[in-house]
């Protein structure tokens, strides 16, 4: 533990996970590099410590990825948040803060498959020459509207209170418990039929559900669509710019990254604490 303290390795940092790489392999690689870095400082560090730090808590946060791992890697590239040392507790707090994540999702019009992705079994092919950017943005506005409504419903707030009104004005209402996937924002970045690029801001999502959103957009447009790429660009406070590339997975870069991200993480956690205090517990009584 001593060397860990001195090296200031406590906190959260983001790494870039390229497509095709299983997150477990990535975590093992980062772990190995950290160990190498620490050992090279010629100090005694029991291996078990490191293992404990990169705890399965991170796994549960990223759990949804594993479960659909059979075809995830081909499609997804992510910034993955890992925690080291005391950062693991932070990781739990971040998980409980229920922050939103940003994704760019690429869709392809004209066919529907059984797993909503480009490589599934073909179900149907449809025409798409009637689809225009206006129609697409209309559908996206409706999806966003109904999800924003659901967000307030799942947050279990008593809407007749002044606190609920003030949180709604600030846009801070979001569920602090389990809920189905909720999209806080969705818009079309590029439209070049048959391809289109969406930016989705959501919480409690899985990749399967994101692909399903693309499929449902296709249905609403009276055509069909499949998802060809899902890319996470932001996870809470960590953006793609904070993500460390494979070449940067050494102890020095990880340290700087942790230190850079620490103030943002703290600010976000503070904000979420105040929201959590305003939220009543599921019994319905306000926690004050």
């Amino acid at each position: 533990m001593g060397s860990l303290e001195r090296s200031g390795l406590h906190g959260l940092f983001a790494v870039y996970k390229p497509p095709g790489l299983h997150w477990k392999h990535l975590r093992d690689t980062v772990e190995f590099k950290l160990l190498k870095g620490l050992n090279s400082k010629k100090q005694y560090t029991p291996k078990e410590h490191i293992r404990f730090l990169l705890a399965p808590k991170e796994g549960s946060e990223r759990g949804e990825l594993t479960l659909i791992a059979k075809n995830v890697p081909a499609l997804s590239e992510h910034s993955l948040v890992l925690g080291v040392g005391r950062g693991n507790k932070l990781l739990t707090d971040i998980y409980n803060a229920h922050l939103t994540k940003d994704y760019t999702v690429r869709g392809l019009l004209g066919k529907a498959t059984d797993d909503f992705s480009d490589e599934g079994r073909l179900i149907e092919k449809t025409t798409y020459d009637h689809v225009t950017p206006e129609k697409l943005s209309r559908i996206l506005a409706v999806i966003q509207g109904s999800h924003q409504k659901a967000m307030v419903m799942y947050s279990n707030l008593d809407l007749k209170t002044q606190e609920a009104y003030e949180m709604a004005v600030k846009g801070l209402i979001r569920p602090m418990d389990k809920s189905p996937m909720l999209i806080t924002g969705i818009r079309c970045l590029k439209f070049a039929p048959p391809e289109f690029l969406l930016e989705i801001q959501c919480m409690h999502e899985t990749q399967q559900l994101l692909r399903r959103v693309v499929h449902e957009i296709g249905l609403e447009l009276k055509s069909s669509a499949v998802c060809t790429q899902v890319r996470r660009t932001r996870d809470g406070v960590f953006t793609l710019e904070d993500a460390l590339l494979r070449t940067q997975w050494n102890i020095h870069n990880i340290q700087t990254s942790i230190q850079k991200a620490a103030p943002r993480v703290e600010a976000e956690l503070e904000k979420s604490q105040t929201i959590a205090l305003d939220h009543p517990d599921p019994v319905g009584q306000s926690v004050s």
Partner: protein
Amino acid sequence: MAMAGTTWRGVCAGVRRARPLLPGQQRSLLPGSAVALLRMRWTAAGKSRSRREAAEAEADAPVYQYVSERARRADRIFTWGFSYTGALGIPSFVQPSADGPAAGRKPRAIQPVPYRLEMDARISSVACGYGFTLLSSQTQDITKVWGMGLNKDSQLGFHRSRKDKSRGYEYVLEPSPVPLPLDRPQETRVLQVACGRAHSLILTDREGVLSMGNNSYGQCGRAVVANEIYSESHQVHRMRDFDGRVVQIVCGQDHSLFLTDKGEVYSCGWGADGQTGLGHYNITSTPTKVGGAIGGVRIVQVATYGDFCLAVSADGDLFGWGNSEYLQLASITEATQVNIPTHLPFSGIGKVKQAACGGTSGAVLNDEGNVFVWGYGILGKGPNLMETALPEMIPPTLFGLSDFNPDVRVSHICCGLSQFAALTNKGELFVWGKNIRGCLGIGRLEDQYFPWRVTMSGQPVQVACGVDHMVSLAKSFI
């Protein structure tokens, strides 16, 4: 989900093999159920035979066309709220039939979410009165207006009863054609309808304004007849005596306002609160030009629903008159009735584009797309704001404005007796206010203290608010 994990490991093992697995082949190390899911997708070794076959099969698959390039968006009508008056136009809610698709269902007093009303005609204007609804189309066919709901004062015209040909219906449960005494029924078009407590107005393009219903206070624009019986009456009165062409009609509770293309306002009906704006508190039974602060001013829109009236001028100024017991005009006078239009010098609301009046409140929309409310009741800024004499802006974030959507603006507002509705430029409908018998359409029966989305299977383009029901005209998404 655990199965997927085992499949994953199976695929991992498969990657290192040169030969891909064709669907249907068994592999001894995998559980049998996982085989069917095996597909060599992200192999490092290029396209496999099965992939090529799949690509060929895909190219051969037929392409379905669900909608052509030039498809028109379908028109839809949604109603919600209290149904026992018949105002929603769905008879099975009130009288479930003994046979047919609705057999055995229980009557539904309240429709808490928008319900589709099927109509063949293209409806262009809708108005909700106190327990009744009028729908109108701009067609040149004989039938231009349909009515449903309460008809005890013949506010929907005369609807002959099928059981007894000499009687008329007191409640009309589904949209029924309203007979209109037009000179040229196959040329005249109906532009707009308006409904009050027990009377209604119909605006035509070349035959003036028609009025039906209760006339105890002259609100139909004709002389009050003592002891007149309004139920089952065939009388429809026509008014053509305006200086200019009437472009907008609105009904208050027991009075009527008419706006001409010259920007002048006429009124008739009950005046005890000064809502006729004619400088007295008596009944007026003929449409009379309104003066006061709007005399000589070019008015572009008038609004009323209870006993309080607002008018918007071409320059974006606001004028009000009528009832002020609920602080509607408290910013300029302590009097509880104002019988002559007065300028409302509100600062900070910008240029007014549209005004709407509730029973105890007022709302304006300015040219920036912001909504301001004042008066008494649930105004839309949380439970703590129950009354204010000066307009307060509703935060635009409540209408969906955010960093993600920075260009959301409110495009239209509408008031019922104690609720508000707003349409945004993104095609969303927001409602707030007292949820009388489910009239907000939000799925709950509780009051709503800030703007809340109403979702329906269509994009709302027009909304009309009544006392305990609402109707919306929408277009399908595609």
